[in-house]
């Protein structure tokens, strides 16, 4: 297949969901069955296109990058900026091709699952429209070969997450969660934007390849090596927001307010993967210092969220924190230089995490139906303490869930084992090369905790006795449209799809297809080169494998001892270390801290501003008003009293005189004659005297 045709298929995969969205948002409600089949067909077609692209790419062009560039806008020379020409483009390398399939595959399965899960929802057609837009936005990020288009997709993903998390916006907590996700992401996006501008100011291009070439040729942002590290860290800021890394991870657990399939989509394929994908894309320009920051952020995130996940009781919350933890793994993997492993974990995690969320969706769906049947609206359908024994009633959900759990715990023969093992080996190699021993320690610790809390869910939700026998009778397995995606994802969680050797991914096709790109930064700033790193990796691989098996085994064993065989009393331990337990239960008080510092600080500043406004500004304005009022009052009084007084006095005087003089006019002729006579007499005397 020629390259152009391949590109066309990729563009079809990109644009079909957009077409679906456009049709759905305008005509969705009028279509039969509210158009769910339309959007689902679109995304399925996109999946087929993506599979064709991947197959052709790997078979025919394994080492080439297909690109399609076009000038979007050309402003010629802009004063103060220089030549401003924005070239947009798409490119397909192996990374993008694999990601294309992962995104469309997960999205397709989520679509099918949603047909069952969202049945009878208030905004059914709009939900599917947004799913399409979400897939489209993510595919833009995947295919973009320049930071400009990437940022467009980045923001589109942000708005889609807002729309879908707040899908049930009548619920206050849901609309709040949507706003929180959006705002927290904005913080990271701001750093990303500054990073993009910083790079553009030096290189005058958004194209990633051009930027890498520029750095290779010795150009540095602002001519300083520090700025290069800063640019890398700033771009990583975007990933911190989108991939829910510490300290911006707080939005992700709240995002559970959205419909469960959306959680699956966000957590597996679209939103959180974007951050990891961005780091993978911009990997060549990361300096050793920037990678160190990335590795530590990833490790801290993985550790914090794993500890929180242990104490949570809401099934979706546990999964949410496990997602953050696994994202921390991926970021840590990229940070330590285990590029392939980090990306590999993104792919495998997408499969089993989507499965876990859809599985939990299936459980919640069943619990809801059962509770609804009983007319019980108080019991929390998502609390694992209200479940138990679901294994008998929901066998498909149970067995698929077990497969995912084994995968995420890193048990051999699963995909998770392969990718996690690679990352852990990478951290060991990193520790050996740089002496930062904390990172591998955290890596293994988190692996153990992951196994523990995942099996805790399985045991509490599916095994043992159900909490309420009457409710239990009404629990039913979910319909076929929901269980089929679960089975597909479970099958995809086995090693065979990624590598024929169940104990090493090194011989698998992903390891061949996705190789760590050479760094373009000046040699003395670069991290350990690929050759050196892989040599070290070779030595640590066996140790890492044995250690990870050991910690995963320990985690699983402790989970069974605590929750299944009840050798250890979990409640008693929680009681004993009450402070620690509530610390974990309240998620390290991150929300409270941010509420206090960020929200409270903002409120304090705005309150101060309001005080200033109310007191000083309004004071001045009011004083002005007061002065004007006093002046006009005086002026008014002068007018009323003096001017009007003079006028009135004249009138009164005339009136008074008239009043007096009218007495003279009696209407009696005789009086007049008397007056006349006397007047004549007076005049006579007066004039005679004069």
């Amino acid at each position, binding site marked *: 297949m020629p390259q152009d045709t391949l590109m066309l298929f990729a563009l079809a995969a990109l644009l079909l969901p957009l077409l679906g969205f456009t049709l759905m948002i305008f005509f969705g409600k009028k279509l039969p069955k509210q158009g769910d089949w339309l959007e689902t067909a679109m995304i399925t077609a996109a999946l087929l296109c993506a599979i064709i692209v991947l197959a052709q790419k790997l078979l025919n062009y394994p080492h080439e990058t297909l690109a399609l560039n076009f000038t979007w806008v050309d402003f010629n020379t802009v004063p103060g900026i220089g030549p401003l020409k924005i070239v947009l483009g798409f490119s397909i390398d192996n990374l993008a091709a694999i990601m294309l399939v992962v995104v469309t595959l997960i999205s397709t399965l989520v679509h099918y699952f949603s047909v069952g899960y969202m049945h009878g929802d208030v905004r059914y057609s709009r939900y599917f429209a947004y799913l399409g837009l979400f897939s489209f936005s993510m595919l833009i990020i995947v295919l973009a070969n320049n930071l400009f288009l990437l940022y467009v997709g980045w923001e589109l993903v942000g708005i889609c997450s807002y729309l879908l998390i707040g899908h049930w916006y009548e619920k206050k907590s849901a609309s709040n969660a949507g706003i929180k996700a959006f705002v927290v992401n904005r913080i990271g996006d701001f750093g990303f934007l500054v990073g993009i501008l910083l790079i553009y100011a030096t290189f005058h291009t958004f194209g990633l390849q051009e930027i890498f070439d520029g750095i290779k040729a010795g150009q540095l942002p602002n001519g300083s090596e520090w700025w290069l590290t800063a640019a890398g860290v700033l771009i990583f800021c975007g990933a911190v927001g989108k991939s829910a890394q510490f300290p911006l991870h707080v939005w992700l657990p709240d995002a559970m307010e959205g419909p469960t399939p959306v959680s699956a989509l966000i957590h597996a394929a679209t939103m959180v993967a974007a951050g990891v994908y961005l780091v993978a894309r911009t990997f060549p320009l990361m300096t050793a210092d920037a990678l160190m920051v990335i590795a530590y952020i990833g490790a801290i995130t993985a550790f914090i969220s794993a500890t929180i996940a242990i104490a949570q009781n809401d099934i979706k919350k546990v999964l949410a924190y496990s997602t953050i933890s696994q994202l921390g793994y991926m970021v840590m993997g990229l940070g330590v230089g285990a590029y392939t492993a980090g990306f590999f974990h993104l792919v495998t995690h997408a499969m089993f995490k989507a499965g876990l969320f859809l599985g939990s969706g299936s459980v919640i769906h069943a619990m809801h139906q059962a509770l609804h049947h009983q007319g019980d609206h108080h019991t929390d359908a998502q609390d694992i303490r209200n479940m138990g024994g679901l294994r008998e009633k929901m066998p498909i959900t149970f067995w698929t869930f077990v497969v995912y759990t084994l995968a995420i715990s890193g048990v051999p023969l699963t995909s998770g084992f392969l990718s996690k093992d690679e990352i852990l080996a990478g951290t060991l190699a990193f520790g050996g090369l740089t002496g930062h021993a904390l990172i591998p320690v955290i890596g293994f610790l988190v692996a153990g905790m992951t196994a523990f809390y995942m099996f805790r869910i399985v045991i509490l939700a599916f095994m043992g006795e159900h909490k309420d026998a009457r409710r239990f009778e009404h629990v039913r397995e979910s319909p076929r449209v929901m269980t089929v995606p679960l089975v597909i994802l479970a099958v995809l969680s086995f090693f065979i799809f990624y590598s024929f050797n169940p104990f090493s991914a090194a011989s698998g096709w992903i390891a061949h297809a996705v190789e760590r790109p050479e760094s373009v930064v000046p040699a003395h700033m670069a991290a350990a080169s690929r050759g050196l790193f892989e040599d070290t990796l070779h030595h640590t691989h066996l140790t890492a494998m044995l250690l990870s098996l050991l910690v995963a085994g320990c985690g699983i064993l402790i989970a069974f001892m605590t929750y299944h065989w009840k050798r250890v009393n979990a409640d008693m331990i929680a009681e004993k270390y009450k402070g620690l337990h509530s610390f974990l239960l309240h998620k390290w008080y991150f929300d409270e801290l941010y509420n206090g510092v960020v929200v409270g600080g903002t409120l304090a500043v705005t309150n101060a501003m309001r005080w200033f406004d109310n007191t000083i500004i309004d004071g001045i304005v009011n004083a002005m008003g007061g002065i004007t009022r006093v002046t006009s009052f005086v002026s008014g009084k002068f007018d009323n009293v003096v001017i009007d007084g003079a006028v009135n006095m004249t009138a009164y005087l005339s009136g008074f005189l008239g009043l007096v003089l009218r007495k003279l006019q009696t*209407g009696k002729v*005789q009086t007049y004659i*008397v007056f006349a006579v006397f007047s004549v007499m007076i005049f006579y005397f007066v004039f005679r005297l004069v």
Partner: protein
Amino acid sequence: MSSLPTFWNEFTAWLPHVQLAHFLIVSAILFALGLYGIVTRKNAILVLMGVELVLNAANINLIAFSRYSTLRLDGQVAAIFVIILAACEAAIALAIVLNIYHRFRTINVDEVSNLKE
């Protein structure tokens, strides 16, 4: 002023020698009486009678001035003229009074004050 007996003596000495002043004094008394009648009477007829007295006082003046001056009969002519005028006046005035009586059923001048205010 000199004492009353002196005045009386002078008056009795003056009175027999008729001259202009005597006429003027009679005329003045007549005028004053007429004026008094005009001012004090309420009856319109009586007021008219007062007016006649005033007119005649004027006639006396005219004739007296004519007699004691170089004028010849000018004063007498004027007096006759006034008498004719008074006759006309009386005729018209009495007609008015009759009309007033017709209208107001009274000839009291005080009550016929419709023009006031």
